[in-house]
């Protein structure tokens, strides 16, 4: 009984320590679309480096594309102001993608870490549930 528990102890410890590690590093290199002022957004990676490869597409409320292009030298992109609320999507073609809607602030830093923790917790729970199911099954079997 003690042994089978120990079998999973190591990965559990690793996973949990990752959670704490990640609370600080999870946002280490995300791409962000940041509002600068009305009509201007800036596309950067966490840490402030400009996402030079990013292509920006702007959609109106109905979801149709109204503007597209790269960033200027400062990493800024100018979107049209006469179209009401817009959704700005940036993609650097290397796996990073970020979105911003007019009116959004940038308070999702925390929710991201929370999401990661919840997901990991889910996996740990699944692992524990099946671990105990197996253990119960083994216990029900006659001793060899």
């Amino acid at each position, binding site marked *: 009984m003690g*042994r*089978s528990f*120990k*079998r*999973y102890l*190591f*990965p*559990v410890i*690793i*996973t949990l320590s*990752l*959670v704490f590690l*990640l609370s600080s*590093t*999870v946002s*280490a*290199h*995300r791409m962000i679309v940041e509002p600068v002022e009305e009509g201007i957004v800036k596309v950067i*990676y966490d*840490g402030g*480096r400009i996402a*030079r*490869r990013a292509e920006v597409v702007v959609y109106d409320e109905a979801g149709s594309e109204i503007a597209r292009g790269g960033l200027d030298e400062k990493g800024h992109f100018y979107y049209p102001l006469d179209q009401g609320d817009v959704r700005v999507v940036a*993609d*650097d*073609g*290397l*796996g*990073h*993608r*970020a*979105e911003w809607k007019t009116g959004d602030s940038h308070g999702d830093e925390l929710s*991201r870490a929370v*999401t*990661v923790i919840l*997901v*990991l917790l*889910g*996996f*740990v729970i*699944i*692992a*524990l549930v*099946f*671990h105990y*199911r*197996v253990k119960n*099954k*083994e216990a029900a079997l006659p001793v060899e």
Partner: protein
Amino acid sequence: MHLADGVLSLPVAAAAYVGAGALVAYSIKGVQEEEIPMISLMTGGFFAISLISIPVGPSTVHPILGGLLGIILGRRAPLAFFVGLLLQAILFQHGGLSTLGANTLMLALPALLVHKLFLGIQKRSVFMGGALAGGLAITGTLVLLILFLLFSDQRFAEGFFSVINLLAAGHLPLIAVEGLITGYAVKFLYNAKPGMLKIPAVNAANNPSIKGI
């Protein structure tokens, strides 16, 4: 490392989905309840660790631990990659749903390959086996990534600073780093928890709860 939506052409993405589907089906087939805790934990570990990005030049590189997952999970590795990638795509727009098939294949094929390789080499040196497996898994992933990009659009290869050259250069350090990490991790597991490595001889000797294999 993760391909985003819209990078691959439709036929390539579709073909990759078919391949990945077959691989995941193979991976799920015959899963025992005993294996699920480990699969679940490794999936969580992969999900979390590959969200960390390290800037290398103009690109970024993610730790993947493809080799380690391959060694520990064996044929169950594709399932772990698929679930991890799916969650990343849905929750963080990291990668993309249309490229999920390609991303899964990119990680799962090398993982399966190095699993076999590791079983062959570990008799001589566990550390070397792990290190080689870790490094080769990334190399395999990189090769598949480049192939996917080339099949989709030849322009990815144009010029010295082409996407492909940048990706290759960015991943060279990762090959070395993951090789070392995997080597040490496997060595550590071999000493501390040999049952986690699916080495037949070790399992039989040290872990009577696992029968046969």
